[in-house]
């Protein structure tokens, strides 16, 4: 469980807070998506979850962030990093090894995971991301999608209770993006892992998340189930968040009195609703 209470953070060199009076609670096992314009504070929010803020960035920190009851200000980064696994926006900056297997072993060995558990954890994480066959490959020889899966698998092997990912599909094609989300969602459900993902692809977020958080200028503008949040398509557009087009279509038909059902977040649900409109 993640509990953020009245969080305000301002980087030392900056003249305004990047996060302001933010309160949010993410239940254990939830798949939460964060969306917002560039500079709205999304990445800083992920730093506040994994403890990089306040431990590594000097600045003014008010309020609190608790991960499974542990206040991030009072918990060492070493301890936090075992609860919260992070996958960076630029995955190439995360890799420390040349070969996939070595990358998988790096975290496990450095945290002193007992030797007899290591093999099982490596294999499980590779299989969870569907890349067991890449184990002996050079990371440099992998495609963008494969690298992304290696980065995620190497964190899954640490078995964190919270997984934080910053734009994990930015460089991937639509099929690989969806595949990464499907694998993540499946793993998280099976292991009770809480997932927090920053992502610009709203269609993916609306399909996979059960909590969608829209951040605007350091504050939470909307938070709730995707269908609740996406009901505000026109307001979202004003703050630089574009809904999936089928959502916008159905919301416009609803505004014109032609449709009164629930908000549609994907093409199949929009088509079913449109059949009712025609009937």
């Amino acid at each position, binding site marked *: 469980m993640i509990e953020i209470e009245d969080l305000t953070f301002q980087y030392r060199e900056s003249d305004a807070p990047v996060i302001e009076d933010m309160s949010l609670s993410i239940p254990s096992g939830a798949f939460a998506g964060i969306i*917002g*314009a*560039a*500079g709205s504070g999304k990445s800083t929010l992920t730093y506040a979850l994994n403890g990089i803020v306040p431990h590594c960035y000097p600045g003014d920190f008010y309020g609190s962030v608790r991960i499974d009851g542990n206040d991030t200000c009072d918990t060492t980064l070493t301890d936090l990093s075992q609860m919260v696994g992070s996958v960076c926006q630029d995955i190439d900056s995360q890799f420390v090894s040349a070969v996939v297997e070595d990358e998988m072993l790096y975290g496990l060995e450095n945290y002193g995971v007992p030797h007899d558990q290591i093999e099982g954890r490596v294999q499980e994480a590779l299989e969870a991301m569907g890349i067991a066959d890449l184990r002996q490959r050079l990371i440099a020889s992998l*495609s*963008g*999608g494969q690298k992304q899966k290696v980065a995620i698998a190497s964190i899954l092997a640490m078995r964190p209770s919270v997984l934080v990912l910053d*734009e994990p599909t*930015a*460089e*991937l*094609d*639509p*099929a*690989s993006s969806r595949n990464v989300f499907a694998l993540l969602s499946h793993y998280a459900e099976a292991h009770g892992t809480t997932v927090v993902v920053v992502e*610009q692809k709203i*269609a993916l977020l609306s399909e996979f998340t059960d909590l969608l958080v829209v951040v605007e200028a350091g504050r939470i503008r909307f938070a709730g189930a995707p269908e609740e949040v996406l009901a505000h398509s026109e307001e979202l*557009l004003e703050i*630089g*968040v*574009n809904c*999936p*087009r*089928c959502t*916008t*279509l159905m919301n*416009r*038909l609803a505004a*014109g009195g*032609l449709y009164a059902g629930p908000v549609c977040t994907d*093409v*199949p649900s*929009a*088509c*079913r609703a*449109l*059949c009712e*409109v*025609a*009937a």
Partner: protein
Amino acid sequence: MIEFLDVHASYDGTTPILKGIDLTIEDGEFVAFVGTNGAGKSTAMRLVNGLLKPDRGAVLIDGVPTTQLKTSELARRVGFLFQNPDRQICSSTVRDELLFGFQAVGRLDDEARRRVDQIIEEFRFDGDADPFLLNRGTRQLLALASIVVLAPPVVVLDEPTTGLDFCECVKVMGIISQLHRAGTTVIMVCHDMEVVADFAERVVVMTDGRVVDQGPTFDVLRNRKTLDEADLVPPQMVDVSLLLPVMEPRFAGTSVATANTLAEMQAAIEDVAAGGAAAMAASEKDALDDVPFQGSERKER
């Protein structure tokens, strides 16, 4: 005009990436290349600006093979925007970055400086800023501006909207659209099918180093079979338009079955719901009016 004549290409001379591409891109066209990661799209782009030369076949620019054109001549004819702006930006100020292209082609004169000042004003940049301290979207705009400033007749854009938020994406595509309207040939690799549908005039689908389909944008995007084979999903309104008439016979034969854009689909549905037999003809495609892509207009001075 750019011509690919039976082009085979590889990076190491042994592993083929492009396996026989035949393609012609006319002056002033806006062509989008789509396909999964690894299909060969970026490789095809590198052949257009001569970063890579074909193993077999030829790439002709205005009738001249890229193997016979000097790098500076290629750079003058084809501007190239890399997927990651950080692979492109190399100067310590925004102004120097914009001047770099002129320096590289030996045209660093007063006219070049005037042009750079003009671009700085148009893009609302701070000329003295350090490019590496700008945010991702502004770095992407700077990389784009460093090409626009040279006014090449052809621009090649490798995923120009990757990693940008919606507003930044609107801004970048607005500038690209402006270039195209002014007569520049635009060749773009793009994963976002909504952007492809909104802006491209022609779409080329690539799979495993080959071109598997090409044609006017919506002819290609409505070809479900080919898209499925290429592991691509059509833009949402096209998807709805293809699915609805199958799910509900009342939609068959109406303008729902031909609607491509949000505005067309909304009008078509309203028409069917109103019981109108004379379904409104699909309005002329007007991407900028359809969805919220409203780039700013460049002003003449």
